[in-house]
């Protein structure tokens, strides 16, 4: 893979990871700890919302987050695989050292 592609792949990867980590922080530290008292004003069934987020919701959220990550990385990987195949077909890039 050319350096240019490697770099843009890495940047796209970082974008995915940092977005998901923001969500991770929000549902755990945010809803489960910092905002829990405020969320307790709302109820779902017998649960106060803050309590539910702290002991249930955040964990479900973590599972969803990892699977969203897996999906997005799959998409990104296949996109770059395609690029790489086109790249190989067009002949090696002479201006840049191919490193992959």
């Amino acid at each position: 893979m050319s350096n240019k592609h490697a770099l843009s792949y890495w940047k796209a990867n970082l974008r995915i990871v940092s977005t998901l980590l923001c969500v991770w922080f929000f549902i755990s530290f945010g809803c489960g700890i910092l905002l829990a008292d405020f969320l307790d004003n709302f109820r779902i069934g017998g649960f106060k919302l803050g309590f539910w987020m702290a002991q249930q919701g955040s964990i479900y959220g973590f599972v969803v987050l990892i699977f969203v990550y897996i999906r997005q990385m799959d998409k990104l990987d296949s996109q770059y695989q395609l690029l790489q195949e086109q790249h190989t077909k067009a002949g090696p890039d002479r201006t840049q050292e191919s490193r992959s």
Partner: protein
Amino acid sequence: MSVQVWTYLFIFLSFGLYILIALWSKAGSTHDFYVAGGGVKPVVNGMATAADWMSAASFISMAGLISFLGRDGTYYLMGWTGGYVLLALLLAPYLRKFGKFTVPAFIGDRYYSQSARLAAVFCAIVVSFVYVCGQMQGAGIVFSRFLEVDITTGVIIGMAIVFFYAVLGGMKGITYTQVAQYCVLIFAYMVPAIFISLMMTGNPIPQLGFGSELTPEYGGGYLLDRLDGLSETLGFGTYTTGQKSTQDVFFITAALMFGTAGLPHVIIRFFTVPSVRAARLSAGYALIFIAVLYTTAPAIAAFSKTNLMNTVNNAEYTSMPGWFTTWERTGLIAFNDKNGDGRIQYVGDLETNELTVNRDIMVLANPEIASLPNWVVALVAAGALAAALSTAAGLLLVISTSISHDLMKRSLAPHITEKQELNYARAAIFLAVLVAGYFGINPPGFVAEVVAFAFGLAAASFFPAIVLGIFYRRMNRQGAIAGMLSGFTFTAAYIIYFKFIRPELSTADHWWFGISPEGIGTMGTLVNLGVALVVCRFTPAPPQEVQEIVHNIRLPGENV
């Protein structure tokens, strides 16, 4: 059949199964022994990781801890699951791509330094060792309480079983027994929970049950409202709101998360899968399997606390059900009739409270408290043993690979053949089992406390070093070593000061920024990061070939 016959039956069956699996999955090479041949399917690895991860503490103690902590118990729940998000997003895929067997191997190669490698070996062994002693002790307790053999016999039986399949099969044997152990432990955890949820609320799903209304026999109304009411009346504070300071809960949660992501016995599980994609997937599966138990635990906590307060408070001591006296004999429940009225006063005020309850009882005695059938009571013993043994095996493997691979093959004796290396690995497990067994029988008083700190130390040493090694190409040897040393020393010093030197000062007034020793690992992580980044700026960049390694683990696709 009596509880004891059922217990013998379940333990005999489950141990027989583990031994069969061990015979079937014998390791032939170091590759088999270290990473199970590297071809483990993501679902299988997810299940094995879950069993590896969920220890005697998760199984026996966690629900009880939560039932006494109320909402604050969330730091265990979120801390021990949220770390998997970090593991999946920041570590597992890259470490798999790097393609070595152990954590010290990554540290040593990435930071091109034998001293970094040896420091990592040291940390890995210390962290795993404290942890494994706790497991052996857990196994001993279960044996002695359920089978009424003494703790020593219990620990020796447990040691013999772990030794058998770990030495024969290495990672390969451990992986497949862990799959069986996961099934045993989750079944044993869920069955009583479902029974109790049905009984108290009519809802078969415990996760929903503890947010439902109680059945008319229990007096109706939402369970959590009842629990809050009872706790307030008796002076324990409201169950569903926090009692600890927000910043302390925040820091403890973060320390447990970073620690989870930095524990070597969890990380090495991701070296056993065939590809980077499989590493990501198995982190996802692992968290699903873990979440089943971790979302049930708070439900059990709420059920058993309600049940306990309903049963004992202000009741005649002589009218207590059979389980009360059974567990009184083991010392897990103690009644001291201070006002001499023959009734039990179970209240928050320490002066007038007459009942002390060990937290472990919430899981161990829960089926009896709810008068479930004998076979359900016996199941808990088999489940707790599965949890203790699966974690012990994973930890012993870390100790063994650190010694045979990182210490012998990569440092002291690089010319040994593969067969010799395998022998070293087996000998190391043998020794580790013996020492762990010794501490299981003669537990040093500090084990229970130190296990919690294994997380703080893992958080302050490994986690930042690995993350920086992947995400910051410029990070060099000097920065990483300085960071690890300062993070480790800072955390260890804070913990040792407040736990061992001046335990009487360990209150919120004396803690820095109100952070308890349990949460200081978070601060240690930040110290490590800060020192590493500063030192790195004033020292030369890592050599070209190391930057090349970092470049390669960032590329899509498999190893090239």
